[in-house]
């Protein structure tokens, strides 16, 4: 277990998920953001444009490396090859933060390319803690673990998601990445109170916040079913929940995530500006 440290060293202002189509716009107009986040797996090639752009951006911005492929919740041991690739990336890039998801995505060496849900049991908790210990040992640094967007529940779950995450953070010394859109999506889908979730969340551990858009569908019984899609603006109820979060937690590095139907830079910059306005209202 790592010592508990002040989680994350990202600047306290807004950042965005980096998309290559924004490269020129960001260089020309960098002020809307204080840092950038990349998906680790997109920068595991040997060279070429992706790596060159990343090196260039890393000279100008603190970088957050966000993994989507480690399968930390997987029943199987972590993929040693993938962990080694991550160590390489984090080694040369020296990012301000590294984060991954409370989810699984690989089974029987097949990567399913989705963040799949976990039952909140003591057995899962022990397994996730083992994997996080391993990641933090190999990378030699603290990681942040992100709360998932969920669409269903496991009958076998024994504890709440907030207790589960608090337990992991306490046992492993990891920090947490609080995705406020995921909180809103999961609470709607599970018919729970998103504000109660934030109030129960170990906010002192939060090194980063995510905000993003979601899609609205209905389940078999006509109940709203929200899908974490990162393809639209952050909706007002999620901004309100974010206000509440920042009022309680203080200012935290906040990322606008927009991965599908990616808009032009000014649209993303405007979302970042809205997050900055919230952050400016509270002391860091």
């Amino acid at each position, binding site marked *: 277990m790592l010592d508990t440290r002040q989680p994350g060293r990202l600047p306290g202002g807004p950042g965005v998920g980096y998309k290559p189509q924004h490269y020129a716009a960001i260089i020309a107009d960098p002020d809307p953001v204080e840092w950038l986040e990349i998906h680790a797996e997109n920068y595991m090639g040997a060279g*070429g444009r992706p790596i060159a752009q990343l090196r260039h951006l890393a000279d100008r911005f603190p970088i957050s490396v966000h993994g989507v*492929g480690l399968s930390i919740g997987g029943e199987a041991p972590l993929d040693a090859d993938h962990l080694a690739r991550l160590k390489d990336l984090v080694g040369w890039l020296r990012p301000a933060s590294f984060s991954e998801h409370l989810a699984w995505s690989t089974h*029987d*060496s097949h*990567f*399913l390319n989705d963040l799949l849900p976990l039952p909140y049991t003591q057995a899962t908790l022990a397994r996730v803690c083992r994997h996080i210990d391993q990641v933090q040992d190999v990378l030699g640094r603290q990681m942040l673990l992100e709360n998932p967007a969920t*669409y269903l529940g496991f009958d076998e779950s024994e504890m709440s998601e907030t207790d589960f995450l608090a337990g992991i953070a306490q046992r492993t010394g990891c920090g947490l990445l609080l995705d406020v859109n995921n909180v809103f999506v999961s609470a709607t*889908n599970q018919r729970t109170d998103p504000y109660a979730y934030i109030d129960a969340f170990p906010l002192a551990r939060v090194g980063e916040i995510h905000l993003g858009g979601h899609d609205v*569908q209905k389940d078999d019984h006509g109940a709203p079913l929200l899908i974490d899609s990162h393809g639209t603006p952050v909706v007002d109820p999620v901004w309100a929940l974010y206000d509440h979060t920042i009022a309680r937690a203080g200012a935290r590095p906040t990322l606008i995530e927009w991965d599908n139907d990616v808009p032009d830079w000014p649209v993303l910059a405007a979302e970042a500006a809205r997050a900055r306005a919230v952050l400016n209202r509270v002391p860091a």
Partner: protein
Amino acid sequence: MIRQAEFARALLDSAQPVPKGLSDPEGRAAGSRFAVYRNNVAVGLTRALETAFPVLRALVGDEFFAAMAGVYLRAHPPGSPLMMFYGAEMPGFLAGFAPVRHLPYLPDIARLELALRESYHAADARPADPEILTGLPPARLMQARLRLAPSVRLIRSSHPVASIWRAHSQPDAPRPSPGAEDALITRPGFDPEVQALPGGGGAFVLALSDGKALADAVAAAEDEDENRDFDLTRSLGALISGRAIVAIET
């Protein structure tokens, strides 16, 4: 307790029942909530294949490609989280996929598109100064070994693979005419480029990449070129203009 094996099987095969023990907030069976994950997996992997194979997709049409991707992703889920390299089994899959048997060039198009991605992500390398070649006395030149950049790829095909690719990826490209083609991929900057090599060029580049001396590479090319008019200048020119020679060992 739900094992991830059971969950994963049901994700990829919608004929499998949704695992028991997954519920909505009222305690009812998860039903279409499980379908969100099924859909995420299928849509995500299909998008990855669309990104990997734009020309293949143009050749078979969007609708057919999406249906074929659905079959492919279940037969060949990704073997690693590096989605930029997803689809490596596509050439073999296409060769055995009955509905495209009448399009025998598709496997080679898939190989070309995979090679373009490998080239795009390959390690950087500084090209050697081609002046070194022109400055060598002919005897030494022919004994030289040319080391090629990590981004160089060669696709040898009994179909006009480079011309078909160009016709579906560049406006105003000429219609392909039948015949075998060797497609050379080079990456002079950050964007890989495809060119069809002249007769014997494929054997020449293959010999060079195997570490053979220039004289032996020329012999290999002449062996293969039925017209016996292998054009060394053109083939070498293709490598030089593609900034594909990174070392000249004399």
